[in-house]
């Protein structure tokens, strides 16, 4: 493949250039057909991330590059009947709209406890928050009469041979991803949304994640020390996104227009084991140089690997991750996925090893054609000894809310 996502080079490590990337992705979303959104008008760009426009054909947070902080949540809907389900999506949208715009909430006087947790102070800055909502296959069971409206490719996450899935960390009726510049922004948003939707949905599982700053430049590194997500489709190309990310009108129910499939995989990395592996073996497992991120046949991370010139894998082994995941052939071009992964870090396991890894998130037009095809090629890759996928799910990221009267899920529930 030749196209790549927006990327910071050496000069791009600061917060504001990151935001430019996020906004560029947002603009790309608009170009793909969104109604024009109000331009962000931050009071102080130097200290306050601008509000990310909420309305559009697509949801924010799909094309946006991974933000410094995220929370991924899976919810089970407990709403009683279709009316309460609709109310849930309306409330969720109202809160997302309010939170992503920011602004001081009114005092509640003596009518009740304060309406806001206060975590972000009295003025509640938007903090660059994005809220991205998806629906899982289980929402289309017999509870809400939605069976006939299920997106063509939506199903429960498959179990792959190298997985060790824990049911408590899998699936869910609704996915909710909150991303922003700061931890307090996403935590505040989660508390607010949970409070307003209590009784309609319960959190099934959740994972906090972060994106490292470029070290020293370029694509951020994962917790194995390798740059992760170097080779991504070009999120600024509307045509490429139409081919690879947005729902395919010829195959999907009409209500899905503007949506996308999101695959979330919670992947534990056995970092102690990994740190005991020699550098050559590490690099051959990935197919990249750890220091620069360059493919083993190149010198810069942006260099395209030339697999055709190395048919027996003398330089980049045939079993390396980058070669198995994306062989760069015409036949595999339509299996490319838009990766938006985060690192996670959450304490220790029962033998005292660190529990950390990857919240792998990718967007695509068709999970079988894309994520699953990639994952099948990766079965039994050498890297599997050092990673354990244990949770996650398949969801369909809803079309965006067009304007202040619209709500996420309207076309699904109409």
């Amino acid at each position, binding site marked *: 493949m030749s196209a790549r996502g927006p990327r910071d080079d050496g000069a791009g490590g600061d917060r504001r250039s990151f935001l430019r990337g996020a906004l560029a992705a947002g603009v790309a979303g608009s170009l793909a057909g969104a109604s024009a959104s109000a331009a962000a008008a931050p009071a102080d760009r130097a200290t306050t991330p601008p509000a990310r426009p909420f309305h559009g054909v697509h949801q924010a947070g799909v094309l946006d590059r991974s933000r410094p902080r995220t929370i991924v949540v899976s919810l*089970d809907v*407990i709403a*009683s009947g279709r009316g309460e389900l609709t109310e849930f999506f309306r409330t969720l949208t109202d809160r997302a709209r309010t939170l992503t715009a920011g602004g*001081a*909430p*009114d*005092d*509640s*006087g*003596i*009518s*009740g*406890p304060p309406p806001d947790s206060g975590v972000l102070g*009295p003025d509640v800055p938007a903090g660059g928050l994005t809220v991205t909502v998806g629906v899982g296959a289980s929402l289309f069971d017999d509870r809400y009469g939605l069976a006939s409206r299920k997106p063509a490719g939506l199903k429960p996450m498959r179990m792959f041979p190298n997985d060790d899935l824990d049911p*408590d960390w899998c699936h869910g009726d609704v996915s909710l991803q909150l991303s922003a510049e700061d931890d307090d922004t996403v935590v505040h948003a989660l508390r607010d949304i949970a*409070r307003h939707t*209590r*009784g*309609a*949905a*319960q959190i*099934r599982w959740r994972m906090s994640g972060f994106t490292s700053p470029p070290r020293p430049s370029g694509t951020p590194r994962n917790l194995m020390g390798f740059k992760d997500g170097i080779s991504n489709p070009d999120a600024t190309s509307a045509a490429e996104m139409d081919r690879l990310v947005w729902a395919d009108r010829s195959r999907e129910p009409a209500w899905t227009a503007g949506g996308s499939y999101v695959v979330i995989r919670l992947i534990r990395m056995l970092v102690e084991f990994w740190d005991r592996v020699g550098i050559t073996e590490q690099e051959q497992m990935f197919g990249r140089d750890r220091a620069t991120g360059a493919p083993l046949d190149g010198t810069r991370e942006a260099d395209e690997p030339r697999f055709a010139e190395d048919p027996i894998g003398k330089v980049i082994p045939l079993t390396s991750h980058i070669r198995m995941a994306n062989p760069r052939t015409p036949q595999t071009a339509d299996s490319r996925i838009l990766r938006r992964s985060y690192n996670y870090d959450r304490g220790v396991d029962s033998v005292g090893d660190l529990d950390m890894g990857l919240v792998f998130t990718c967007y695509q037009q068709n999970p079988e054609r894309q994520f699953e095809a990639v994952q099948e090629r990766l079965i039994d890759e050498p890297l599997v000894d050092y990673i354990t996928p244990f949770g996650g799910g398949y969801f369909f990221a809803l079309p965006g809310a067009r304007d202040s009267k619209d709500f996420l899920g309207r076309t699904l529930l109409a």
Partner: protein
Amino acid sequence: MRTPFLVVSVALLLASAGDARPTLGAPRPAAIEASTTGCGTGWTHPHAGGQVLTLRNDGATAAGVMLVDPSSGAVYAEVEGLGPGVTRRLHLSLGGGTYAFRCEDDRAGDPVTGPSVRIAGGRGSSVAVLPVTNNDLYAPARAYSKYVDAGLDRLIAATDRLRAAVDDGDLGAARTAWTPAHVSYERLGAAYGTFGDFDGAINGGPAGLPKGVHDPDFTGFHRLEYGLWHGESAASLRKVADRLAHDTRALKSDFPHQRMDPADLPLRAHEILENTLQFQLTGTADQGSGTTLRTAAANVEGTREVLGVLRPVLRDRYPALSQVDTWLDRLDAQLKGRSSVDGLSTAERERLNGTAGRLLELLAPIATLAEPRRVS
């Protein structure tokens, strides 16, 4: 925060904190006066819509100040314990109407109502609620005390049956008698100090005791539960049962002297079920009987009683009261026929937890809006 006397003590602390006063001569931003002298003066440009009003107490003692509708006395906003020299901001969204500030200090004098301010046009989202007085809560508190008193008689009778079974050495009968006795206590809605030290002795858990379930200070229903469901002998449990029966009688004879503080009643509206969510729906209170959901159902009964006696006060003040009833019914339906969270599916527990959570969100405002306030 849970008890009104704390608010008073904070006010007194602020009143004595002399360094909270700004240095004389320093420029002061425009603010609305919150002391009893000049109450409400300085509101320069009253207008409809979202706004921030800055209040400052230029008096010598702590002040309480409310923004009210002077015709009805309904309260839009309140600041308690505003210390001398202290400034506080209110975020409000005011609609067209008449407004006035009402100020009181911590001395005996009556509250002072400042000048009425007319605002034209516009709709606001700030809600005004008619304040509840101590007087309003006397009758509900009396009715609730009566409920507790009658419940204590049933508790004593049920606990006596439990003790008799233990004394007889019939541990099967004791296990059968344990649950009705325990839920007769849980129905009383004891939360956060209603029954003082008796609650710990009668219904405490092992948390906070150095030797846990084997700590000599672990007493009451849960100590007995632990023994009855962990193979302890009748002989070893006799003392526990005797002590429990004794403590329930002591509670009964002590209760009239405790005289429930009417101000506690609105707090109970959500606090009883906050405990239920924390200890019963999680299953952590279980010491072997597997009855935490029966406890939860008894707690719902206690909450219903609190709401029942408060209903006359809430009816015209709390628009979500009918939703409270709906979700109480839902929670009851979720609990019906269930005893333990063990064996419930993930979906069943999610429904139960989410129902309790929503109910708590709906109950919480009652604590704020029915907190007794001085109006004259």
